[in-house]
C-alpha cells in the first residue's frame, strides 16, 4: 500500500523537546495508553528526556513536538538550533503556541524585583514568548494541556504524509456534537465561542466554563462575546483578566485587547 510519505520511508525521527512549561503536555502524550505502542513501533523517538535515557540532542529530526514557551536565552538558542535541524516543527501546547500561563509574567508588575534578591542561575528573558515569535512553526497543537487524541491524529497524519488540519472553529461546535447543554443557559459565562476547538469541550461537559486555554480563534467575534459576557454581569476589570489568561503575549494579546476595548 502506497501510503508512506517520503519522510516516512525510513522511520521518522521524532523528538519531544521542552522549554518553559509545566510538562503536562508531555504527560498527556503518555495518555495515549495502548495506542502509544503503535507510535513507538512506527516512529523513532530520538529525544524524549522524560522517558529516555539517551537523547540525541544534536541530530536532525523529521518531526519535533516543541513544548513550552521561550523564557531564557538558553532556550532561545536551543529553539533556533532545533528549528534548523527539523523538517516539521510543531508548537506543542498552549505555552508554545501562545505563551500560555508562563507568559502571564509579561504583565505581572515588577515580578523581578518582587521575586528574588539575587539573580538565579539561568536568567530569564524580559518577556516569555510563544515560539513562533522566533522561529517558523509548521503546525500548532493548542491546549493547556493538549488533547492526546489530537496528538495521535497528528502522528498518524504524518505517517501518511498528510498535513494535519487545524481545528479552525470554536469550542461550541464540539459542545453541540457531544450534546452538552450550553453553560449560558445556566447563567454561567464561557469563552467557548471565541476559542479554538480540538479539545472536544471537556470543560463545558463538566459544567465548567471554558477559560480559553486553546487561544483566540481567528474568526472570533470578540465584540459579540464581550457584549454577551457583559450581559451576564462581567465587569470591565474581569474582562481583562479573562482575556489575558493564556494569551498574555504582547502582539496577540494586544490585538484581542483592542477588540475588547472596541
Amino acid at each position, binding site marked *: 500500500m502506497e501510503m508512506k510519505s517520503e519522510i516516512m520511508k525510513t522511520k521518522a525521527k521524532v523528538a519531544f523537546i521542552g522549554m518553559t512549561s*509545566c510538562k503536562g503536555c508531555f504527560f498527556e502524550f503518555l495518555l495515549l495508553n495502548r495506542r502509544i*505502542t503503535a507510535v513507538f513501533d512506527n516512529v523513532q523517538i530520538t529525544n524524549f528526556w522524560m522517558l529516555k535515557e539517551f537523547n540525541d540532542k544534536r541530530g536532525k529530526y523529521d518531526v519535533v513536538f516543541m513544548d513550552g514557551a521561550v523564557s531564557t536565552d538558553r532556550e532561545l538558542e536551543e529553539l533556533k538550533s532545533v528549528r534548523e535541524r527539523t523538517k516539521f516543527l510543531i508548537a506543542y501546547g498552549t505555552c508554545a503556541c501562545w505563551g500560555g500561563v508562563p507568559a502571564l509574567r509579561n504583565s505581572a508588575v515588577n515580578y523581578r524585583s518582587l*521575586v528574588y534578591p539575587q539573580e*538565579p542561575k539561568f536568567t530569564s528573558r524580559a518577556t516569555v514568548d510563544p515560539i513562533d515569535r522566533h522561529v517558523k512553526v509548521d503546525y500548532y497543537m493548542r491546549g493547556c494541556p493538549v488533547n492526546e487524541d489530537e496528538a495521535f491524529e497528528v502522528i498518524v497524519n504524518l505517517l501518511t504524509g498528510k498535513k494535519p488540519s487545524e481545528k479552525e472553529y470554536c469550542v461550541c461546535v464540539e459542545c453541540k456534537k457531544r450534546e452538552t447543554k450550553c453553560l449560558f443557559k445556566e447563567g454561567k459565562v464561557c469563552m467557548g465561542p471565541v476559542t479554538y476547538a480540538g479539545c472536544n469541550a471537556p470543560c463545558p461537559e463538566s459544567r465548567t466554563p471554558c477559560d480559553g486555554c486553546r487561544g483566540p480563534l481567528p474568526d472570533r467575534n470578540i465584540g459579540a462575546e464581550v457584549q454577551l459576557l457583559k450581559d451576564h454581569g462581567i465587569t470591565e476589570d474581569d474582562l481583562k483578566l479573562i482575556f489575558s489568561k493564556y494569551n498574555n503575549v504582547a502582539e496577540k494579546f494586544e490585538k484581542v485587547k483592542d477588540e475588547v476595548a472596541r
Partner: protein
Amino acid sequence: MSHQGFTLEELTKLEGHAKLSVEMEGNVVKNTKLEVYEASRYFESLLLGRDYREAPAITQKICGICSVVHTLASIKAVEDALEFTPSEQTVDLRKLLLYASNIHSHTAHLFFFALPDYLGFGDVIELSKAKHAYIHLALDLQQMSSDMVKIIGGRALHPVTPMIGGFHSVPDEKKIAALLKRLEGVKRLSLRTARLFSGLEVPELEARSRHVCMKNKNEYALYDGMITSNDGIIFRPRDYKKNIIEGVMEYSNSKHAKLRGMSYMTGALPRLNANYAKLSDDAKALVKKSRLKLPSNNPFHNNMAQAIEMVHFADEAKSILEKYRNGMKQEKYAVTPREGEGVGCCEAPRGLLFHHYGIGSDGRIKYANVITPTSQNAARMEDDISIFLPTMHGKPASKVKLSLEMLIRAYDPCFSCSAHFLELNLKKK
C-alpha cells in the same frame, strides 16, 4: 570516577531538567549540587492582583503531573483564607480525586521512569518494543486511573471541576458506576504492581534522616492533618513558615527547604513509615510479604512504598464510592470574598505541598507562596548522595552513574514543579 568528582549532565526520565555535580576528595564527598535548570516561572508574582477564584486554575499549571493536588491545595488555601468549610460530600470527592490522581502519578513514575532501570532496559520505549509483559500492565493501569481522574475532574490533567467551595459538577449515579468499574481494574492491577515492586532488589542504603509527612487520627492522611516528623516535630500546616525555611541556591532554579535547620524527606516512604497502622488490610498484607521492614530508612524503598500505597488508595476510593452509589447531589456553594490569609496543604504523590495566599477585601490576591515536594526533598537528595557514594567505592563508573540516577529517581522528583521559583527574600547572601 575521578578525584575531582563528576557531573551527570542531564538527568533523564523524570519531570523537568536537572543535573547533578559531585565534588569528591578520595572517597569523601565534599560537595553535592543538584542543579535545576528548568526555567523559573514566578508563579507567586503571576498571581498578584488576580482574582482569588483564578488561583487554582493558574497554580495547577505549576506542574502537569501533580496538577490535581496543586488544584486542591490551592483551593484549600483560599478556603482557609475565606474561612469557608466545605461540605462532607465535597471533602469525600476531593479525597477520591486525590486517590485516583496519586495512583495515576505513581503508575507513571513506577513504570515509565523507575522500572526500566530495574529490568535492565534503557527506557520504556525499549520495553514497549520488546513487547514486554509489563507494558500492558502499565498502560492499562494508567488508562484506568487517569480515566477516574477524568470522570471526576473533567480532564486527566489540569482538572476543571474542582472550584472554591466545591465542584462545578459531581458524579451522578452513572458516573459512580463507571468509576467503580475502573476501580475494580485499578485494584487488580495495583496488586500486581505492588507484588512486582516489592520483589525487586534495591541497593542497600541506610540513610538515617528526618522523614516528614501529614498525619491524622482517622486515616492514612493525604487531604488534611498535622505535619509530623519521625523525630517528634509536629505542627499545623498554618505554621509551616515557622518551621520550614526555604533557601535560594545560587546554582539552582529550585529552592532547597529545611525543617528546623535539617534536610528531610517527604513522600511515599515517610507516609508509609508513619501511617502503617492505617493501611487497608490488603496493603498491610503486602507489606508483610515484601522485603520492606518498616520503618525503612532506605530512600530506594520509596518506589516500593508507592506501589503499596496504590493498593491502599484503591481500597479507600472504593469505600468512598460505595457511600455514594446513588450518585452525588449537586450542592450550592456560597463563598464570599473577604480579607484573609490561608494555607492549604495536601500530600502530593511525591510529598508535602503547601499553598499560602493573602487575599484583599476586593478579592484580589495580595500575597502568594508555594512550597513543592521536590524543593523540600532537594537538600535530602544531596545528603543521601553524599552517604551513598562512598558505599559504591570500587564499582565501575557506569554502575555508579546508574545507581545515582536511580537514587534520584526513587524520590520521584518533579523539577518543573520545584522551579516555579518560589517566594522572596529568604536566604540573602
